[in-house]
């Protein structure tokens, strides 16, 4: 049984979630807003807003490239959080999760970080290189501030699955394949039994990510979990339109992007 998961009351369902990932500032902050709008229109329930990082250890080449593009726009943790109110202004209503590596958070400091999240109205945070054992303090602070601190769990998390799942907030991010983001995906018997085990212990929706890139993948994930996380595939769709943006065909490109997403999650 899922307990009420909230994102400050903004997450209105607890299953069949669609959780897209984009990198703030890829290829420009303005376009990030446009993508977010299209994703929402295509049914997104939560937006993962990635903060570009110089050394993204958990990401594959696709997201690395997106981060490089965004860094060239001088995107930073500060600016990414400050993008949230602009998303709101433009009409994005779904909860936003700031996806950032740990080091920029350290440099900002926990106090300022949560202050900024609050000021700018970001509902969640996910730090891919801050595992359960190292995150006790920040999880406490997040809870205090009413920010959902998203945890990840992997098939080889083993005895830690129970612990992580039981303490999960917002939603629980299942890494379905061993690997960095963007690998190919097939749902093996082991993956299925892993998801089952996670669901047994989790009180929040269990979403599956890493490697979801076709509508078949999406169907498969939907069947066995509470939500699907899509990252690299979305970045690749954006990459496919870069030329169009440069050529000033923005509207057509965004429309194509929207249609593609619709096909993907239909």
């Amino acid at each position, binding site marked *: 049984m899922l307990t009420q998961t909230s994102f400050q009351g903004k997450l209105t369902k607890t299953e069949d979630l669609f959780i897209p990932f984009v990198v703030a500032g890829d290829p420009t902050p303005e376009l990030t807003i446009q993508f977010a709008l299209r994703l929402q229109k295509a049914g997104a329930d939560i937006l993962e807003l990635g903060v570009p990082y110089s050394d993204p*250890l958990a990401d594959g080449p696709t997201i690395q490239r997106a981060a490089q593009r965004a860094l060239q726009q001088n995107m930073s943790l500060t600016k990414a959080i400050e993008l949230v109110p602009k998303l709101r202004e433009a009409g994005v209503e779904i909860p936003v999760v700031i996806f950032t590596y740990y080091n920029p958070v*350290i440099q900002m400091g926990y106090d300022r970080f949560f202050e900024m999240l609050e000021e700018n109205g970001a509902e969640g945070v996910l730090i891919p290189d801050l595992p359960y054992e190292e995150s006790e303090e920040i999880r406490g602070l997040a809870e205090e501030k009413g920010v959902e601190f998203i945890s990840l769990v992997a098939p080889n998390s083993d005895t830690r699955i129970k612990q992580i799942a039981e303490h999960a907030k917002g939603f629980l991010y299942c890494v379905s394949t061993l690997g960095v983001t963007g690998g190919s995906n097939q749902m093996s018997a082991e993956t299925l039994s892993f998801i089952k085990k996670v669901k047994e212990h989790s009180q929040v929706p269990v979403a599956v990510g890493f490697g979801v890139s076709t509508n078949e993948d999406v169907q498969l994930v939907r069947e066995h979990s509470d939500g699907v996380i899509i990252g690299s595939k979305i970045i690749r769709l954006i990459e496919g339109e870069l030329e169009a943006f440069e050529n000033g065909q923005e509207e057509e490109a965004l429309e194509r992007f929207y249609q593609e997403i619709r096909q993907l999650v239909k």
Partner: protein
Amino acid sequence: MQQVFPDIKGRFGDFGGKYVPETLMGPLQELEEALDEAMSDQAFLDEYHHVLKEYAGRPTSLSYADKLSKQLGGAKIYLKREDLNHTGAHKLNNAIGQGLLAKRMGKKKIIAETGAGQHGVASATVAAKFGLECKVFMGEEDIRRQELNVFRMKLLGAEVISVSSGNGTLKDATNEAIRYWVANCEDHFYLIGSVVGPHPYPRMVRDFQRVIGDESKKQFLEVESELPDRIYACVGGGSNAMGMFYPFLQDPCELIGVEAAGKGIDTPEHAATLTKGTPGVIHGSMTYLMQDVNGQITEPYSISAGLDYPGIGPEHAHLFQTKQVRYESITDKEALSALQLLTEQEGIIPAIETAHALAQAFKEAAEMTPEQTILINLSGRGDKDMATLMEHFQEEE
């Protein structure tokens, strides 16, 4: 009572820990357990020391640099000769230890990152010797600069994987090796080349390198009947320094770690992590690093590829904070002069990395008295650096 580091969470005071993607937490746990078990198994330790002796050429010599000591007119200078190790640097000590551990864990494939190629060659060597498959990640810029070491690795049967992300240097190669490990951790052992990375790597690498300090202590006492007044080592990731310093931490010796000041610590082109960096997380570990105000890691610079790294082992960060070790920095130029001086006075061409330790030591030795003694860890030989030196000295002319 002296506290034991790292603690159970892999921390050296404020530093260390495991800041890695969730997928690696399992493998790190497995590694830690295997390591603890191996290190308390006498048969494993015996094999490690057997390979060091009969294959790597240990113990390495302790050389008294008599001509140089007289020339500088100060302290007596001793050199711990890690350059005499098989493959030419201290790196092999660690690669042998981890290679044996990989075998013991039943892993048939190893991966490694490399900058100048020394750790890559050491890993490829160990892989050949122990019958393991080996992939070495190396930045595409470093591949270009270190053609000969790349060829050595290939000859040894290793696959060298070119990394084009970032600037194509050591930091990027390390990122890529970690990513590959994330995707393939089930049957791959990641053989890290310095006292960096998530717990238990900093401890493991230190413990496989402490043979340097253990031998030095014994040898030094044999010839001088007392301990050296000061001990110097260069610091990139910090493995040769930790290996040398660790057994002397409780002794009344002054320990000096020497970082690369590149073109000067007042320029943006240096790799003086402790001198100029700030705390943060890099490659899975809380430590000092070079970064901008947004917490983006910045590109380091040093003429020596082995010191050209924006982080440093977490134990060094701790020893820096607690002032147990003094850290200094040396420019490219000072390092090259020291390299020339040692070569001309003692007939030993050191690695450019090592030359940083030499430069600091020579400065200080000249101010000391002939009753005082110093020990320098000569971490590697300079053969690999000939092309760089040729370029440099030709430019000078």
